[in-house]
């Protein structure tokens, strides 16, 4: 369970984000510049909020003191960057093995085969198509056996067909891994197709939007109280 309650001053507004995520796909949906990526970076520890709390299960990532924040290395977070950030000087295999833990039981070959990149291991990133890069980056992030997966516009660089396939793949992988996926997108269709919970970000505020069915939401009670008229 991820618990986020943070404030951060950005150039144009103050970002307030308060939500929780169980082992489900939580979509942060909103226009560009609305603070979505900043939220992911705060969870990953690449930047720090000004105040607040970030906690994943019993591990406190951040409790209001930037200097005492848990470094990204120790958060065990998988992060799929917007344009993947595959290391250009390493092969696909070196990229994927970079963050694998010693003595892991991970069945890498199965994971590779399940997304169809098992024949690309010797290639360099610049030799891959967009969809292949996306899959490699996804496997690289999962190969670290993270406790949570962050995805920043993971499908925005892909054509419509590939995007559809990758969406199905994401849903399938989520079924397999059962960890929180926190996914950023500005595409409403994608948000609705993938999200168990959709959070709308706008001008630094994060509001819940109820998706297809009510019972799939798992928002923190505090947000619901706040959004329905504040609390005492």
């Amino acid at each position, binding site marked *: 369970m991820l618990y986020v309650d943070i404030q951060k001053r950005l150039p144009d507004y103050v970002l307030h984000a308060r939500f929780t995520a169980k082992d489900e796909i939580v979509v942060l949906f909103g226009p560009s510049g609305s603070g979505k990526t900043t939220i992911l970076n705060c969870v990953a520890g690449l930047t720090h909020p000004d105040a607040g709390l970030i906690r994943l299960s019993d591990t406190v990532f951040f409790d209001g003191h930037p200097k005492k924040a848990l470094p*990204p290395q120790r958060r065990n977070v998988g992060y799929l*960057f917007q344009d993947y950030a595959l290391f250009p000087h390493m092969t696909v295999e070196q990229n994927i093995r970079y*963050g694998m833990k010693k003595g892991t039981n991970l069945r890498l070959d199965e994971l590779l085969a399940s997304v169809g990149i098992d024949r690309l291991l010797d290639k360099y990133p*610049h030799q891959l198509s967009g969809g292949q890069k996306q899959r490699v980056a996804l496997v690289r992030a999962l190969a*670290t056996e993270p406790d949570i997966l962050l995805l920043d516009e993971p499908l925005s660089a892909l054509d419509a067909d590939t995007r559809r396939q990758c969406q199905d793949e994401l849903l399938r992988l989520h079924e397999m891994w059962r960890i929180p996926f926190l996914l950023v997108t500005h595409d409403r269709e994608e948000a609705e197709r993938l999200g168990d919970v959709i959070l709308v970000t706008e001008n630094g505020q994060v509001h819940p939007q109820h998706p297809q069915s009510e019972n799939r939401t798992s928002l923190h009670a505090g947000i619901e109280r706040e959004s329905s008229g504040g609390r005492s």
Partner: protein
Amino acid sequence: MNHPDLTPLLLSLKVAAVSTSIVFVAGLLIARFLTRKHFWGKHVLESFLLLPLVLPPTVVGFGLLLLFGKNGMLGKWLAEWFGVQVVFSLTGAVIASVVVSFPLMYQSAAAAFSGIDRRYEDAARTMGASEWRVFWTISFPLAWPGLLAGFVLSFARGLGEFGATLMLAGYIPGKTDTIPVAIYFAVEAGQMDKALFWVIVIVSLGMGTTMWLNWWSRRSVRRFANTK
């Protein structure tokens, strides 16, 4: 001149090799540090580091003489505690070469490091890599073409250093006469054939260096092409 005395070549190579090793490590560390830290006075410090690039070498040599001379701050201290004399020694030539070629290494390294997309380093951190590992497996290899260019330029600059070297190390045949100094004093003494010999040697070295650098950087550009 059947058997030219090759001491100047050996001395030049020695000075350039030692000074380039020092400059490479120092330039790399300082550039790495300064490209990621922001503090008051950073620009002043950077300008100071680049100063030898724009000053006449005689001015640099003069400054070094003040510092390392027998009564200079560092010179006195080095002589008293270590018995090291910098003036009129090969150490002096190395110091002159370090100071003059440092800006070239620093600039190349700073450009190389700030040219790296920081998300590569961030990605490595989220994958659990320590800062040490991030540096050696991501930052260093990605900055390598720029670092190597800085290395080669510093070496070439060290090989050709004249003004500051002459002021600090002087001209002692067999001891501090590097090629550029040897050329100057050969001409002064009217030994044009000797001067010409060393001119040809140093032009060949310079051409070889820049041609190799050109070839290498084109090759490495190809290797890193389409990486984004």
